[in-house]
């Protein structure tokens, strides 16, 4: 009963929020708000404990839909800067989902996911420069395929490696990525990177829906934010099912007891490589989306620092869990604004050394503190509090 009541409360809050944010056109706002309220109520009721237990796929679908819907309504009401942050954060969520899956299911860790993002990012940029006007979905699929292929090559040793060897190898890949791009300089544009020939513009139906946009919000940034949010939703849905699938369960056995896994007939090499490939493919999808959002790609973005940032986000959010990846993505989306706020309120010079390194100092310290004091991160802490609740 308690879950039902909290579900209805969530529905009410969401409905009010929907009316409040809405869209510029008054009539449309009312209709959408009603639909949203009904939808949210239905979803909330359906995702109650019983549905989650008996029809997990239905519940996962509905949860995904509600998360995406809330985010989409949000993107139409915020301003362009926040929407760009959200787009980058949503793409980052995809990357974090991949790393979370790798660690949560197979117990391995990769320090090279920033470079795998780069693989996807450059695939998109190179393709767009050679084939004008390809459908977006095709370009993103190509990024995923390229990421998976490189992931497979680097994942091969994962078949036999234990412990930190794989982490060290992926670190070497991340550090080397810039030089590797230079080897293929005629394709990748060397140090200056690539510009996309034409920006990803909002389609006509969306332009009609938000005719002029508002002063602070262009239709294009709404479109880009929606695009990445939907992509993150799709990635999230696949990942939720993958975690729960037979393959996901067999990987968790590999993580917890590889000898037992082998005894029940799981092929360790295949399981480990597959997990690694999936994580690389997710990273490449996130990187491809970044290229589309930024409309350009530079090699320096995809250096070792990015891989470390990815690791920090996933550990702080809660490694090995889906909520952890989402929390990490949100932290990423708003970390720059938060650090700007800190800089402004502590009187640091924004161009000074300390201000420019604040990001690294804070994330690094949080990373160490999280792994020492709360290895399960924010989502683990929330889960523990939830389990202790008295109602």
């Amino acid at each position, binding site marked *: 009963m308690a879950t039902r009541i909290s579900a209805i409360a969530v529905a009410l809050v969401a409905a009010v929020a929907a009316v409040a944010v809405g869209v510029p056109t008054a009539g449309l706002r009312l209709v959408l708000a009603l639909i949203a309220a009904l939808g949210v109520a239905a979803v909330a009721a359906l995702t109650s404990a019983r549905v989650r237990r008996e029809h997990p796929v239905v519940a996962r679908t509905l949860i995904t839909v509600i998360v995406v819907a809330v985010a989409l309504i949000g993107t139409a009401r915020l301003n362009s800067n926040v929407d760009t942050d959200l787009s980058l954060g949503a793409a980052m969520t995809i990357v974090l989902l991949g790393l979370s899956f790798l660690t949560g299911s197979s117990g391995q860790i990769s320090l090279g996911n920033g470079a795998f993002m780069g693989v996807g990012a450059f695939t998109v940029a190179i393709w767009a420069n050679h084939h004008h006007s390809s459908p977006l979905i095709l370009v993103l699929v190509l990024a995923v395929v390229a990421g998976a292929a490189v992931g497979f090559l680097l994942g091969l040793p994962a078949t036999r490696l234990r412990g930190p060897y794989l982490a060290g190898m992926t*670190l070497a890949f991340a550090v080397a990525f810039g030089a590797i791009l230079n080897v293929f300089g005629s394709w990748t544009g060397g140090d200056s990177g690539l510009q996309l020939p034409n920006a990803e513009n909002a389609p006509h139906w969306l332009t009609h829906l938000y005719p002029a946009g508002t002063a602070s919000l262009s239709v294009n940034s709404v479109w880009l934010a929606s695009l990445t949010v939907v992509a993150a939703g799709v990635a999230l849905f696949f990942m939720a099912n993958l975690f729960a699938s037979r393959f996901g369960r067999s990987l968790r056995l590999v993580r917890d007891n590889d000898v037992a896994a082998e005894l029940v007939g799981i092929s360790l090499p295949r399981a480990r490589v597959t997990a690694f490939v999936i994580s690389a493919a997710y990273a490449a999808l996130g990187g491809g989306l970044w290229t589309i959002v930024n409309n350009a790609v530079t090699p320096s973005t995809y250096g070792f620092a990015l891989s470390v940032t990815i690791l920090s986000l996933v550990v702080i959010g809660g490694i090995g869990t889906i909520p952890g990846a989402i929390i990490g993505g949100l932290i990423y989306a708003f970390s720059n604004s938060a650090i700007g706020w800190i800089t402004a309120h502590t009187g640091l010079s924004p161009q000074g050394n300390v201000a420019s390194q604040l990001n690294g100092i804070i*994330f690094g310290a949080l990373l*160490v503190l999280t792994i020492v004091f709360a290895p399960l991160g924010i989502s683990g802490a929330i889960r523990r509090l939830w389990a202790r609740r008295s109602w």
Partner: protein
Amino acid sequence: MDAFWTSRVMSDILGGLTNGVIYALVALSLVLIWRSTRILNFAQGAMAMLAAYVGFAVLAPSTNYWVSMAVAIVAGVVLGGLTERTVVRTLYGKPEINPVVAMVGFLLVLESVAAAIWSTTSRSLPTPFSIIDWQLAGRPVAMSPFALYEVITAIVVMVVVAVVFQFTSLGLQLRAAALNPEVSRLLGVRVTRMLTLGWMLASGVGAVTAVLVASNYFTGLTPTTMDGVFAFGFIAAAVGGLDSPVGALVAGVLLGVAFQFVGDYVNSNAIILVALGLLIVSLMVRPSGLFTRRTERRV
């Protein structure tokens, strides 16, 4: 004979040797820590970098090179001890990814702090010897007084480490603590103290490495100076075997020479590709390294 010393092949060998001893030192530092605490110290390069900054940036540039070097080594040793006592000690017996994550976080903190204090602008270090190559019959030999000093310093460090481990009571205790902590403790070895000492020793080796790297390479000293060197050092350690100090040294020197040839005959950007390929192949063929006895885990 002159033509031989200035030939392209010999130049590559000599140039590779100077890089190789650096990789060997980084690898040695990693192996020392891995053997005693089963932790791959991803912050090794950053700790060494910080020690070099303490030696060369805190003191005025006019200070004597050798004083700065000594200060850097002391800073490295202290930093190693502090790190073990504060961060690393909480990680023993945890799942194997926890130390990886913690050390990467520590790496990020150290590099950011160094950049916040000293900025990311490259700082060139004084060199005690000329960096101009010797000449033979009007052609340069790929070896300068400074490069020779580098090689000799590296060899001295290696010999000191070897002597400490093989011929002193302290070394015996260090080895015993790494090999079997429980039994050593029963026999009166202060194991926790040995672990701290192991980190201090490795970190001191790291400080020497960072000073050599920062004064030799045209990049100078920056907060990320050691990133690339660390990657090569790790590759050497992994190829040689994380459990084998000798393997790490041999692999480091051989890789240094091999990469010099690749850089000279192919292209300098190809070095890291070759290195990665080599690492992947070597890890697939002999996951525990070329110089270690195999301990197979099978059902």
